[in-house]
C-alpha cells in the first residue's frame, strides 16, 4: 500500500461536466479572505491544522480560509449538541484554548511550539484535560471531532488530495465499466506495490 505517485485525477477534467468543473475551479483558484478570525487567531489555527492533518507537499492546500468562510457565513451542520456552544463560539473557544494551554504548560504561543509539543497540547484538549475552564465545560471529544471533521472535509475536497488517495474523481457523464473485484478501468488509479488490483 504505497500510494499512487503517477495518478492525477485532474488529468481527466476535460471529461467532467461543466457544473463540476466550475465548482472545482473556484475551489482551487479562489481562496477566501479572512473575515471571522483575527490574524492572531488564524496563526494559531493554522498551526493546529498543520498537526491535525499534516501535509507533506511543497505548497500546502489552504484549509483555514475555508473554515473561516464557513464560520463567517454561519453555515451550520444541522446539529447542535446540548451543552455545546454555537458553532462559531466553539471555534473561537478552540483557538483560545490552544493558546491558553500552550501558555500555561509551556509559556509560549501555540504556533511557536515544536510539532511534538503541539500534538501533546492537542491530545490534552481532545481528552478534556486542558486547564481552560470553558473548554472543560463542553463535551471535549465531540467538540474535537467536530473540529477535525470540518478540517478533513475541506482537505479531502481538494483534487490534489483525491489523487493522493487514489479516488476516481467526478464521474459524469462518464461511466465505470470494470467494477468487479480485481478489475479497473484504464483511467483509474493503479497502486504502486500492488501487483493485482
Amino acid at each position, binding site marked *: 500500500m504505497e500510494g499512487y505517485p503517477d495518478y492525477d485525477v485532474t488529468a481527466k477534467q476535460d471529461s467532467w461536466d461543466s457544473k463540476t468543473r466550475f465548482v472545482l475551479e473556484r475551489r482551487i483558484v479562489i481562496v477566501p479572505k479572512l473575515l471571522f478570525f483575527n490574524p492572531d487567531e488564524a496563526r494559531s489555527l493554522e498551526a493546529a491544522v498543520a498537526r491535525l492533518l499534516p501535509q507533506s507537499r511543497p505548497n500546502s492546500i489552504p484549509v483555514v480560509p475555508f473554515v473561516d468562510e464557513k464560520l463567517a457565513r454561519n453555515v451550520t451542520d444541522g446539529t447542535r449538541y446540548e451543552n455545546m456552544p*454555537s458553532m462559531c463560539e466553539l471555534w473561537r473557544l478552540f483557538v483560545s484554548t490552544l493558546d491558553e494551554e500552550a501558555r500555561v504548560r509551556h509559556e509560549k504561543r501555540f504556533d511557536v511550539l515544536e510539532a511534538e509539543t503541539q500534538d501533546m497540547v492537542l491530545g490534552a484538549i481532545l481528552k478534556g484535560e486542558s486547564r481552560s475552564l470553558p473548554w472543560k465545560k463542553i463535551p471535549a471529544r465531540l467538540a474535537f471531532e467536530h473540529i477535525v471533521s470540518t478540517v478533513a472535509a475541506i482537505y479531502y475536497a481538494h483534487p490534489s488530495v483525491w489523487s493522493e488517495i487514489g479516488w*476516481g474523481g467526478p464521474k459524469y457523464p462518464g461511466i465505470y465499466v470494470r467494477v468487479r473485484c480485481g478489475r479497473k478501468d484504464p483511467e483509474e488509479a493503479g497502486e504502486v506495490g500492488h501487483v493485482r488490483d
Partner: protein
Amino acid sequence: MSVTNAGHADVVIVGVGAAGAVLAAKLARAGLSVVALEAGPHRDSEDFASDELSMLYELFWLDERISSGKDPIELGWPNSGRGVGGGTVHFVGYALRFHEDDFRTKTVDGVGEDWPISYQDLEPYYAEVERFNQVSGPTFFPWGPHQGPFPKRSHVSSCMHDTFRRGCERIGARSTAGPMFIITSPTKDRKPCTYRGFCKFGCKPKAKSSTLVTYVPEALRHGATIIANAMVTRVNIGKTGRVESVTYVHKGREFEQKGDTFILSAYSVETVRLLLHSTSASFPNGLANSSGVVGKFLMVHSADFVIGKYDAMIRQYRGPQGLALTQEWYSRKPDDGFVRAYTLETETLQPIEFSKALIRGKGLWGQRLVDEMRDYNHYASFGIVGECLPSENNTVTLSDELDEFGIPRAKVTYSYLDNDKKIIEHSVRKCEEIHDAAGAFETFQYPGSAHLLGTCRMGDDPKTSVVDKWCRTHDVKNLYVCDGSVFTTGAGVNPTLTIEALAARTADYVVETKKRREL
C-alpha cells in the same frame, strides 16, 4: 408585515419529499387542485455538482436543531432533505418492504405497539410505488412476504457489494442484491446509472428514483402547483375547528394559502414543530395534540457502519452506494436475548464521509488519519439498519430559542433502549463475521443513526395516537399528517418505500372522501 392572499386549493401539502410528492401526483391526477409548498429549492438534476463537499451543504436540512439525550442523534446529514424531492434526493435507495410481523410487534413480540393497519392493507400500495418508481431487484428475494418480481432487473454488482456477498456466503448466510430505487435501463428522460457512487449527493443522470424525477414531474404534468422556497410557518385554525389556511414565507414576503384539506408531509421534526407551534385558543398544546403525544415516540434506526480493511483493492467509490444486503437475522425471538429486526446492507462512503468515519469511529487525527486515508481504496463499508422501539421519552419538543422565522428551534431528545442496544451489538458482530470471512484483516465500528420516525404516530385510539389509519388527525377533520412521523414502529428496513406506500394509500382515501361529499 402584510400577508398576501395566495388563493385557495382543494388540497394544500406542506413538504415535497417522499410523501408529499406522491400525494401531489396522485391527487392532481384525480383532478383535484393541489398546492404543494416546499421550504427548499426546486433543483434540476443537471445542476448537481459531482462534488461531495458542495453537495453536503446543498441537499440537506442544516438549520440548527438541538440534540440531547443519552444517545444524541446527528440531525442534518443522515436525515433530512431540503428542496423538492426532500430526503429522496440524498437517500441511498434501498426499496424494502416491511415484513408482516413488523405491523404487530406488540402481539407477536410483546414490545412496541401494533399498527392499526396490516401488511395486507399496504401490499397493493407497495406494489404500486415499486411499479411507478421502476424499482430494480433480484429474481428472488429470500425474506418476508414479497419474493418478487420487481419491475426491473438488478444492477451489476461492484467490488464492495461482491465482497459483502462473498463474506455472507462463507458464513452460510444468504444474501441478495437488494431491490433499489435505481433504474437499470434508461428511459426517455432518465439516463443509466454511471456507477459513480453519488446516490447520496444528487444523482445527475436521474437514474435514482428520487421523487424529484418520478412523482414530481407527474404532479406537474397533472396540474399541481409546487411552490419552492416556501417555508410554512404556521397552520391556521378557523372558528369551526377546521384548518383554514397555512402561512408561509416566500422571498421575504408572507403569504396565506387557503384550502379544503391540508396534509403535513414535512417529516418527523418539522411536522411536529409546525403542529406544536400552531397553538390557538382551541388547541393550547399544539394542533392535533389533544393526546399529548405529538412529538413523542420518536424512533430512529441504528445505522452503525462496520468498516473492514482488506489487502485487495476494493475501490468503494464505484457502484451504486448501496446494493447488497441480508435479512438472515431479521426476526429475532426472546431466545436470542432480544426481539425485533435488522437488515445488514452495503453502503459506500466517499472520501469526506470516510474521513469522518475514521475520525469518529477510530478516533484518528494527525498523521495516522492521513495514512489511513491513503489506504481508502482498501476499505469496505457495511451498515446496519436496526429497529429501535418506540419510547415516550424520545421526543421532539420546542426549545426556547427562535429561528430566523420566529419559530422555536426543535429540541430532539434520544436515548437507545436496552433492546435497541442488543440489536446493535448483534448486528455489528454479524458484520464483523462477514468482513472476517470475506478476508478483512481488521474492522472498526462507526456508530450512527438514520431516519426519523414516529412523532405523530398512527393508531385507532385518539388518546394514544395522533393520526388514524388513513393518516387523518384524530382532532382536526381536514388535517392529515403523512410522512415518516406516522410510523407506529420502525421495522428493520429503510423507511422510504413504506412512506411512499402510505402516501399512495392516503391519497386514494382523500380522493374517496371528496367524492363521497360530492354525492
